C-alpha cells in the first residue's frame, strides 16, 4: 500500500513539475533569440516581444521552482533507500546541477525579470544568455541522472552478506554522466521543450492576429516562433529515433512494450503496430492493426555510425517473464498497455506537430498566414505538447519498471522504511490541492498578461525610480 501511494505521489509530483520547466526552458531559448535579434537589428518590436515573454516566464518560473523544490525533498522523504544507494552518482550530478545551473538561473532570472530598466542593453542580453544556459544545464544534469537510472554505467555494485545491494560506487564519473542514453535523451527532451514553448508563443501571436490586436508585434512573433516550432517538430523524429535505438540496445523489455510484441520476432519483415487493443492478462493483443516491414526498417537503421541491417531481432515480452525454482513467476517487464498507449499518444501528437509545421511553413511561404482556420488550429493546439511531453515521460519511466535503476535496483526495494500509508495519502491530497490552485492562478495570470498587453503602451508610468543610497 505504501509503495503504491508513494508511486502515485511521485507520479503526481513529477507530472506537475513536467508541465512548467519545459515551458521555462523553451521560453528562455526564445527570449534569448528575440534579445539577440534586438541587439543585432535594433528594432524595438523584438524587445517588445521579449518583454511579453518575460512576463509570461515570470509566472511559469515560480510554479516551476515550487514544484521542483518538492522533488528535492521527495527523494529523501519517500525514496530514502534509493537516495542512499544511488548517492554516489547523484552526489556528482545534482551538485553540478546546483552549482552550475540552479544558482545561474536563480540569480540571473532576477536580473531578467526586474532588470529591464536598470541594465544596459548588452548586459540584459547577457542575463538572457545566462538564464538560457542555466535552464538547459539544469535539464542536462537531471536528465543525465535519469539516463543513468535507465542505462547505468561507470559503476560497481557493493552487496552485503545477504546478497542485497548495500550501495553503488561510481568508478568512472565521466562514463556515468555520459552513459549510453544521456545525449539522446538530452536532445529529445530539449527539442520537446522548444516545441512546447514555440507553439505556446505561436498560439499567443495567433490569438492577437485573430482578434486584430498588436498586429505588428504578432506578425513578427508568429513568423519566428512558428519557424522554430516547425523545425523542432521535424528534428524530433530524428532525436526520437536515437532514443528508440538506445532503448532497443539497452532496454529490450521496454521496446517490447512499445510495440506490444508478446513473442520474439526476427528477420527483415517485422511489422509495426499502429494501434492495438491489449489483453495484458492473457498476454495477447485482441486487435492489432499493423504496417508490414516498418519495425525492421526502424530498428535496423542507425545514424551513428550510419548502418543499415534489416535482419534484426526484437525480443518479445514473454521472454522477460521468469519462473523461479520455487515456482513463483517474476515479471521483469513493464506494464504493457500503459507503456504502449502513452508511447502511441506521443507518436501521434508528434506526427500532428510535423503536419501542422508543414502546413504553416507552406502558408508562410505563400504569405497567407492570416488564414483564420489555421490560426485557430494553432491557438487551440497549445496544450498538446504538454500532453505529448507527459506521455513521453510516462513511456520512459513506466517503461523502466519494475526497476528504479534498470537491471540493478527494483522500485519496491527503494522505499523509505516504516513509511505510513495514511501520512503519504495525506501528503498527496495536500500537495495536489496546492498544485491545482497554483496552476489555476498561473493560468489566470498568464491569460491576464496576454489580454492586457498593448504594444508600445508598456512601462510608461515608471512612477518612482529606486533611490540610490
Amino acid at each position: 500500500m505504501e509503495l503504491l501511494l508513494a508511486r502515485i505521489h511521485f507520479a503526481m509530483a513529477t507530472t506537475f513539475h513536467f508541465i512548467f520547466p519545459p515551458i521555462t526552458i523553451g521560453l528562455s531559448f526564445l527570449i534569448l533569440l528575440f534579445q539577440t535579434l534586438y541587439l543585432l537589428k535594433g528594432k524595438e518590436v523584438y524587445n517588445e516581444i521579449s518583454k511579453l515573454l518575460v512576463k509570461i516566464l515570470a509566472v511559469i518560473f515560480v510554479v516551476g521552482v515550487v514544484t521542483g523544490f518538492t522533488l528535492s525533498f521527495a527523494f529523501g522523504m519517500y525514496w530514502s533507500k534509493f537516495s542512499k544507494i544511488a548517492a554516489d552518482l547523484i552526489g556528482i550530478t545534482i551538485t553540478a546541477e546546483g552549482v552550475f545551473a540552479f544558482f545561474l538561473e536563480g540569480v540571473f532570472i532576477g536580473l531578467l525579470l526586474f532588470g529591464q530598466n536598470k541594465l544596459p542593453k548588452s548586459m540584459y542580453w547577457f542575463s538572457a544568455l545566462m538564464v538560457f544556459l542555466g535552464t538547459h544545464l539544469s535539464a542536462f544534469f537531471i536528465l543525465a541522472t535519469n539516463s543513468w537510472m535507465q542505462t547505468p554505467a561507470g559503476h560497481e555494485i557493493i552487496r552485503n552478506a545477504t546478497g542485497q545491494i548495500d550501495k553503488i560506487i561510481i568508478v568512472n564519473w565521466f562514463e556515468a554522466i555520459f552513459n549510453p542514453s544521456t545525449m539522446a535523451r538530452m536532445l529529445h527532451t530539449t527539442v520537446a521543450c522548444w516545441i512546447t514553448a514555440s507553439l505556446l508563443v505561436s498560439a499567443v501571436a495567433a490569438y492577437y492576429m485573430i482578434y486584430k490586436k498588436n498586429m505588428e508585434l504578432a506578425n513578427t512573433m508568429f513568423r519566428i516562433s512558428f519557424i522554430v516550432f516547425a523545425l523542432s517538430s521535424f528534428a524530433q523524429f530524428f532525436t526520437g529515433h536515437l532514443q528508440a535505438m538506445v532503448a532497443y540496445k539497452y532496454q529490450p523489455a521496454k521496446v517490447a512494450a512499445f510495440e506490444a510484441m508478446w513473442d520474439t520476432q526476427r528477420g527483415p519483415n517485422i511489422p509495426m503496430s499502429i494501434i492495438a487493443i491489449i489483453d495484458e492478462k492473457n498476454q495477447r493483443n485482441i486487435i492489432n492493426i499493423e504496417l508490414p516491414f516498418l519495425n525492421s526498417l526502424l530498428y535496423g537503421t542507425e545514424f551513428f555510425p550510419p548502418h543499415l541491417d534489416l535482419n534484426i531481432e526484437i525480443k518479445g515480452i514473454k521472454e522477460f517473464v521468469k519462473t523461479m525454482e520455487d515456482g513463483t513467476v517474476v515479471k521483469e517487464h513493464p506494464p504493457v498497455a500503459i507503456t504502449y498507449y502513452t508511447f502511441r499518444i506521443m507518436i501521434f501528437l508528434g506526427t500532428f506537430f510535423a503536419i501542422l509545421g508543414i502546413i504553416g511553413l507552406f502558408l508562410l511561404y505563400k504569405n497567407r498566414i492570416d488564414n483564420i482556420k489555421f490560426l485557430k488550429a494553432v491557438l487551440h493546439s497549445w496544450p498538446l505538447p504538454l500532453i505529448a511531453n507527459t506521455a513521453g515521460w510516462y513511456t520512459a519511466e513506466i517503461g523502466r519498471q519494475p526497476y528504479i535503476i534498470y537491471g540493478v535496483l527494483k522500485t519496491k526495494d527503494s522505499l523509505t522504511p516504516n513509511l505510513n500509508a495514511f501520512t503519504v495519502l495525506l501528503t498527496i491530497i495536500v500537495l495536489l490541492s496546492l498544485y491545482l490552485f497554483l496552476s489555476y492562478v498561473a493560468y489566470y495570470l498568464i491569460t491576464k498578461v496576454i489580454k492586457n498587453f498593448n504594444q508600445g503602451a508598456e512601462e510608461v508610468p515608471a512612477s518612482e525610480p529606486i533611490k540610490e543610497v
Partner: protein
Amino acid sequence: MDGFLTQHILYIVMGVAFFVYTFLYGPILGSGSVFPLLAKEDHERKAILHSVAPFWDGAGVWLIAAAVVMWGAFPQSYATLFGGFFLALFIVLVFLLLSIASIELYIKDETRRNFWKNAYFVGNLVPSLLFGVALGNVVMGIPLNEELWYTGDFFTLLRPYALLVGLLGFTILITHAMGYILIKVEGEVIERAQNVLKISNSIFLMLFVIFVFWTHHMFEGLSIFYWIVSALIVLLSAAMFFVKSFHFWVSTLILLLSWILIGLIQYPFVIRGLSDNGITLFNNSSSPVTQTAMIVILAVGLPFVILYTYYSYFVFRGKFSGKEQLY
C-alpha cells in the same frame, strides 16, 4: 584526495551552505514571520516584498545546495533525516512553497492579495520555527536503530531542548531580517522594524544563555572554543542594542558564529544518535571518487556564484519604498 580530507572539506561546505542560506534567505523567513506587525499598508507590504523579490531564488538555492551536499557526501544522513522527519519536513515544505509563491504573486495577483499576504506570513512563520526544531533534534540526538534509520515519530521531535533551539532560530532570523529591512526599505516600516528588532534580540539573548548552559550540561568534553564562541555571540547580541546602522552585519556574524558553534558541538556527528550510535562523517560517506568530483565542481563553480550573486545585489542596491515600478 584521500577520504579523510574530502569528508572534512564537505562537512565544512555543508555547514557553510546552511550558513549562507540563513544569511541570504533569513531576511525572507524573518520578515515574513512578523509580516502583519511590520506592514499595515499595501505599499509597505510591497516595499518589503520588492526588497527581496530579485534575490529570493538565488538565496533559496543555498538550502538545496546544503541538502545536496548532505545527500552526495553523507547519504545515510540525508536518507535518515528526510525519511525520518517525514511529516515535519512535509509541513516545512508546504509552507515554504507558499512563501516562495507569495513573493511574486502578491505583486501580480491583485484579486487574491489578501490570501498572498497571509501566505507570506504563515509560509515563513512555520519554517522559521521548525527549521530550528529540526536542528535542535539533530544536535541533541534522535533514536536510531542498528542500521541508522530513525525509529521515533513526529512527537519525538517536540522535546524541550529542540523547542528551545527552535525559538533561538526563530528570534535570530527575525533579528537578522529586521537588520536587512533597516538598510533596504524606507518609510514607516523602519520604526516598527527597530522595535521588533529590540524585542527579538532580547529574547534571543536570554534564551541563548540558557542554551549555552543546557548544552554544557548535556554533553561532556566541550572544548574551550565552545566557550569562546558562545561568549562572542553573547557580546555581539548585546552590542546589537548599541549599534546605529550595522545591525544586519552584526546579526550575520551571530549567524556565522552560531553555525560554527553547532559544528563544534556536533563534530564528528552529522546526526547524533540517542544511544551511543550516530551518523558520523566517517561511517556514512560516499566514495572518494564522488567526494573528489563534488569538491572539484564546487571549487570551479562557487567563485562564479559568489561573483554574480554580488553583481545582482549591486544592480538592485538602494532602498525600496513600495511605490517603485519593479516590473
